[in-house]
């Protein structure tokens, strides 16, 4: 059980960090849409439209790392309980 919790914690931390880095390492809040700019040929106006895309932010990474820490912490509690028995 201890080992399972620690492996889960490690996987969660790696998956969150990997996703965050792979999507560009957004240092702001999580975004569910990103601006796409195009230039109108006739008027020269730079138009802004939004493309639906999930871009995890720092709070996503923080929440995942916190979850991983809790899992790892729980594994120690479990370990201690087994030792006292």
């Amino acid at each position, binding site marked *: 059980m201890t080992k399972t919790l620690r492996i889960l914690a490690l996987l969660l931390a790696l998956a969150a960090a990997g996703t965050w880095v792979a999507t560009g390492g957004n240092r*702001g*809040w*999580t*975004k*569910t*849409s*990103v*601006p796409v700019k195009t230039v*109108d040929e*006739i*008027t*020269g*106006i*730079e*138009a*802004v*439209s*939004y493309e639906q895309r999930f*871009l995890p*932010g720092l709070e996503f990474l923080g929440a995942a790392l916190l979850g991983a820490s809790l899992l790892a912490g729980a594994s120690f509690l479990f370990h201690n309980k087994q030792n006292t028995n």
Partner: protein
Amino acid sequence: MTTKIITLLTFTTLTGAALAAPQSFDFKDPKGVNNAVFKLDAPLEAINGSANGISGTVTFDPANPAATKGKIVVTAASLHVPNPMMKEHLHGEQWLDVAKHQEITFEAKSLSNVKTTGDTATADVSGTLTIKGVAKQVTAPVKFTYLKDKLAARTNGQMQGDLLVIRANFGVKRSDFGINPKAPEDKVADSIELTLSIAGASPR
């Protein structure tokens, strides 16, 4: 012969008057290109977004840009930021209260410092900006670009007419319009930078 000359003179005068007359430009853009970008840059957090629900009418005379009048309307609910929770707050009661105040408007009253170069005119436009039901007098530097006969190119030949491109970049204070007045300024900047890029059509 005299009748022909009078007819020709009348035609020439009327045509000349028609060409010099102020034109009405409709800023409802079916292509969805028109946009207003807003930026709030606080020390701890930056908020960037845009709005594309733009409509309104501007009367512009290429021969006399100083006489420009008009009103631009932005649908408040069209304001968008990439974070969904931030967008919910932006539309909410504390911020813009879009359910109650559905429109952000700017009504141009007068122009000063008008400078014309070819098809382009720059001026300081004074008028009334209304956000969240609060009306304030503001003056913004504006650039007008008159694109004669360019409407056809934009509508694949379906309509003939002219285009007017308006660009403006100016700032307003969040506190002046009662937008989330309790928000700390290190997180939400009081200064809002606005960039307007819009094109209106005057069909013939």
